[in-house]
C-alpha cells in the first residue's frame, strides 16, 4: 500500500506584486518522514510553509493536509493536528514558560499534563517558572519547539529551528527532531538553508530554488547522485577521446580535463601505458568526487549560500 502524503501541494504559487516568491510548487510529504526543505536564503521556504499553515494566502494552487483539501472553513480544524515553529519562536516575554504553554494548551484543548511532558522533552522543566523574557535564545527556541509539540500533533512544521543556536544547541535540537517520528509518530517538515543539517536529519528532501522545487525525493536518492569520476589531462585530448570511445567508455570534456566514470585500477594503468606508447603527454590523473554540496549548488545555483 502506498504511503499517504500528509502534505501535498499542487501548483502552489505565491506572488507579491510582480515578484513570484513561490512558483508552481508540487510538494509531497510522506507520513512518518522527516522532510528536509532545503534552499538558499530567500528561496521561498518560509513563504511555502506559511501558505501550508494558512498564514499567507496562495495566489494559485491548492494544499491538501491529511488527505483533505484545505480551505478557509476547515483550516483551523485540520491544523489542530499540526504544530509549528515559523522563523523565530512566538512567546509572551512577561509570562513564564509554563504560562506561555498554558495559553497554547488551552487553545489546543490538549491535556494539562502535556505541558510537563513537552517541557521535559525540551529540557526546560527547571526554567518553567522563569519569565520567557529572561530566557536565552536557545531556551526560547526550545520553548517554541515545546509549544509546537503540545498535544503531540501528527505533523510538525519547523522553519529553520536551529537559527541562532550555538553548536551544542544545534546538535541537541537535531537529535530531538530525529527522535520525533520514531518515538511519537510525528511527521516532521524541517526547513534549512544548510545542506549538512538536512543531511543529518532528513530522510526525504525537497530543494527549492527561486521559488521552484528543483528536486524532491529521498535523501538516499540524492546521495546516489554524488558520483565519483576520473579526470585526465593530456596534450592531445581529442586523440584520447577517440581511444576511450573505442573502448566503449563514456567521456565528458570539462575545461582541459576529460572526465570518465569511476573505473577499475587495472584499466587506468593500461590506459596510461598506451598513452605513453603513443607519445601522448599525460599531465594529470585525478579522482573527482561530486559531493552533496556540488549537487546542491548545481541545483540551486552557485551564487546561493550554503
Amino acid at each position, binding site marked *: 500500500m502506498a504511503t499517504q502524503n500528509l502534505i501535498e501541494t499542487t501548483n502552489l504559487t505565491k506572488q507579491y506584486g510582480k515578484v513570484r516568491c513561490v512558483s508552481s510548487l508540487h510538494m509531497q510529504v510522506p507520513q512518518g518522514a522527516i522532510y528536509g526543505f532545503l534552499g538558499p536564503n530567500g528561496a521561498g521556504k518560509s513563504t511555502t510553509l506559511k501558505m501550508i499553515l494558512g*498564514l499567507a494566502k496562495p495566489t494559485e494552487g491548492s494544499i491538501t493536509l491529511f488527505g483533505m483539501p484545505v480551505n478557509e472553513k476547515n483550516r483551523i480544524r485540520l*491544523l489542530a493536528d499540526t504544530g509549528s515553529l515559523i*522563523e523565530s519562536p*512566538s512567546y509572551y516575554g512577561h509570562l513564564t514558560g509554563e504560562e506561555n504553554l498554558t*495559553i497554547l494548551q488551552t487553545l489546543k484543548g490538549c491535556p494539562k499534563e502535556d505541558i510537563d511532558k513537552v517541557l521535559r522533552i525540551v529540557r526546560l522543566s527547571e526554567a518553567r517558572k522563569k519569565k520567557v523574557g529572561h530566557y536565552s535564545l536557545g531556551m526560547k527556541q526550545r520553548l517554541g519547539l515545546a509549544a509546537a509539540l503540545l498535544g503531540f500533533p501528527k505533523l510538525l512544521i519547523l522553519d529553520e529551528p536551529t537559527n541562532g543556536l550555538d553548536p551544542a544547541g544545534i546538535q541537541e535540537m537535531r537529535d530531538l527532531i530525529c527522535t520525533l517520528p520514531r518515538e511519537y509518530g510525528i511527521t516532521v517538515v524541517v526547513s534549512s538553508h544548510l545542506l549538512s543539517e538536512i543531511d543529518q536529519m532528513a530522510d526525504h528532501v525537497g530543494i527549492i530554488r527561486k521559488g521552484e522545487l528543483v528536486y524532491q525525493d529521498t535523501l538516499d536518492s540524492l546521495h546516489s547522485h554524488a558520483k565519483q569520476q576520473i579526470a585526465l589531462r593530456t596534450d592531445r585530448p581529442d586523440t584520447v577521446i577517440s581511444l576511450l570511445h573505442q573502448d566503449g567508455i563514456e567521456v565528458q570534456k570539462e575545461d582541459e580535463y576529460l572526465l570518465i566514470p569511476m573505473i577499475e585500477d587495472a584499466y587506468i594503468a593500461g590506459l596510461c601505458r598506451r598513452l605513453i606508447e603513443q607519445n601522448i603527454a599525460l599531465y594529470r590523473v585525478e579522482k573527482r568526487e561530486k559531493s552533496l554540496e556540488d549537487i546542491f549548488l548545481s541545483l540551486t545555483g552557485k551564487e546561493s549560500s550554503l
Partner: protein
Amino acid sequence: MKTLRLEFYKTKRRKVWLTMFALLSVQLLWGLWSMKDPKEWELQSGWMSLLYFLSLLDGIMVPTMMSVLASRLADIEHKGNTYKQLETLRSAGSLYHAKAVCGCIIIAVMFAVQFAFFILLGYHLGYEGNPEVKYYLLSYVLKVAANISLFLLQLALSMLFANQMIPLVAGLGGSMAALLLMFVTTYSFLPWGGNLSASLVWAEWDETTRISTFCYRAFSPAETAAVICIFVWIVVFYAAGRILFTRREV
C-alpha cells in the same frame, strides 16, 4: 469564551488594570482638590455638576488612556511574534474579537468604578438629595460607548502597526483635538469628541456672579446625531479593524 479568558490571562503582569486605576486615582485627586469646601449653591446642584465635571475630565484624559489600553493589549502580540502561532489555532477574526471584548470589559469596569468613586465623594461632600439614577445610568452607558468607540479605533491601529508609536501619536493628537473642541462646541462627530457629545449636563458660566448654572441638556438634532454617531463609530471601527486584521498576512 476560551479565547476571551486567555486575553485576560495574557494581561497578567502587564499592569493594565493598574494603568487604568492610576488614571482614576488622578481623576479622584483632581476631584478632591477642585470640589473641596463647596459653597451652598454648589451643594444644591452637586449631582448635576458632578456629571459635567466627569465629562470634562474624561474628555481631557481618557482619549490618551484608550490609546494606552489598546497598545498594552496589542503590543504583547507584536513583541512576541505570536500571531503566526495563534492564527494556526484560531481564526484571525476571533482573535481580534477577543481583544476587542477584553478591552470593552476593562472600560466598562473602569467607568463603573469611576462612577462609584465619585458618587461616594458626592455623598462625602454633602451634595443635596441623591443622584438621579436615570441620568447617571444613561451617562454611564454613553460614556462607556464613547470610549469604546475610541478604544476600537486605537485597537485597530495598535493591532495593525507593530510600531506602537503610530497609534500612540494618533491617540495624543486626538486628545488634543478633543480638548480644543471643548472650547468651541458642545458636540462633535469626531471619535475623540465622544465624551463631549455624550455629556448630559451643560454649564452656563455667569461672568458677573462668577457662578456656573448647570442644566440637563436638551439635545438639538445635531447633538442627537453626534450621540448616534458614537454608536456608528463603534460598528465602523470594529468592522474595519477586524476586516483589515483578517486580510493581512503574517
